[in-house]
């Protein structure tokens, strides 16, 4: 995989994922209106100082416009990327701005995928304004790759130190809920708690093992990325976590490319030229 291919794939996957996520948010826009649970009339009081200068973008009408612009932006970005660098930088910068605004307007209802998209579009936007040399392009992709690896490893560690995850009761509990659960899986895990424990340990081991992507290219990396895709696909079906599938696979081209020994060798040669 070349650098350009990795960048393009990242942009396409990130854009598709954020397109679906934004469309879902627009479908539930009434939650963010004046009479909704996320009304700005209430949320503005989370800020003590006057924020008149930002109030313009947090109000419902302008915030909705920003989301619509984001939707348009991610639709257009895969076609402009690589051909119109300045345009792509502006579009990805606007998308990033809308994501950050959303975070500061109200973090309720957001999840880890929002953070993933911020990292993706921050890297894409910064790539757009850079010289786009091999070095800085590699750095932008590496930022995505390293954050992706961190996400899995930190998550795995947090599960490893959790008694509920180690004894298997975590999955039974999560599956019992209506927010992320699955009634069929809950009943099955309740009848067979040993499989819940096995599944919990499977998740812990996979997430911690993801760090191996950094060192054992390409077969181990491909295996881990394949496992990752399967893991998120199962979560999408079982728990309705469709946006995790789309957000995390958008980081996979960067993970595959950046830890390729041949490409890393090129970077090394650039940083430490022979003679």
């Amino acid at each position, binding site marked *: 995989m070349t650098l350009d291919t990795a960048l393009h794939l990242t942009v396409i996957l990130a854009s598709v994922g954020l397109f679906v996520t934004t469309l879902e948010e627009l479908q539930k826009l009434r939650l963010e209106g004046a009479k909704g*649970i996320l009304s700005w009339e209430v949320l503005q009081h989370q800020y003590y100082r006057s924020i008149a200068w930002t109030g313009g973008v947090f109000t419902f009408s302008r915030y909705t416009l920003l989301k619509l612009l984001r939707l348009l932006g991610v639709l257009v970005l895969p076609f402009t990327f690589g051909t119109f660098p300045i345009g792509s930088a502006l579009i990805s910068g606007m998308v990033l701005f809308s994501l950050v605004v959303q975070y500061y307007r109200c973090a309720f209802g957001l999840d880890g995928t929002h953070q993933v998209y911020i990292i993706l579009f921050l890297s894409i936007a910064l790539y757009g304004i850079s010289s786009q040399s091999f070095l800085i392009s590699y750095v932008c992709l590496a930022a995505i790759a390293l954050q992706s690896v*961190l996400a899995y490893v930190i998550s795995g560690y947090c599960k490893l130190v959790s008694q509920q995850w180690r004894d298997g009761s975590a999955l039974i509990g999560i599956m019992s809920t209506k927010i992320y659960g699955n009634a069929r899986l809950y009943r099955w895990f309740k009848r067979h708690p040993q499989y819940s424990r096995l599944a919990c340990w499977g998740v812990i081991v996979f997430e911690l093992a993801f760090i191996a992507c950094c060192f054992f290219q390409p077969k181990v990396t491909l295996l881990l990325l394949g496992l990752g895709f399967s893991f998120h696909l199962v979560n999408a079906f079982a728990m309705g976590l469709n946006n995790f599938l789309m957000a995390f696979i958008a980081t996979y081209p960067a993970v595959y490319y950046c830890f390729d020994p041949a490409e890393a060798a090129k970077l090394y040669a650039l940083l430490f030229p022979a003679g």
Partner: protein
Amino acid sequence: MIDIAVGAILSIYLFATLLYAAFPKWRGSIFRSEKVVRIIPKWNFFAPIPGTQDFYLLYRESCNGNFSHWREVDFYTYQSDPLTFIWNPNKKGKKILFDIATLLLAQDTTAKEDLMRVKLSIPYLMILNYLSNHCTELAENVQFAIARPTEDQVKSELMYISGIHNV
């Protein structure tokens, strides 16, 4: 120059993520501003404490001193949909309620001044604003409660009951 700035921004962001995850006890002293902390990625999905309970938002109205039965807020649906692995807009409402309820219930309400502080907190006001805008026309007052299912999943137990507020 721009390339150096780009590299610095991405490095600082990565370093902040590592620091935030590695030193939880130092979060308050290193990351003083909550506004800064908000933008740093937190990669602890469903851990170390997994979300293993639902919350229900209940409310009742009163008119001429008579209270209605407790009703559940239905701004999100429990219906399962085979397409949720691709399209799942309903998860947003569920997550909002989960986040608000978790934050509300985490507040200390032992002292009287704490009770007043809770009533002025953002989660409390969000719920109150929402219910005030969705009460029936005849309602004079509204009260809400946060409930969770019991272990047998058949009944619910009230975790928090608000004050009674004019609509």
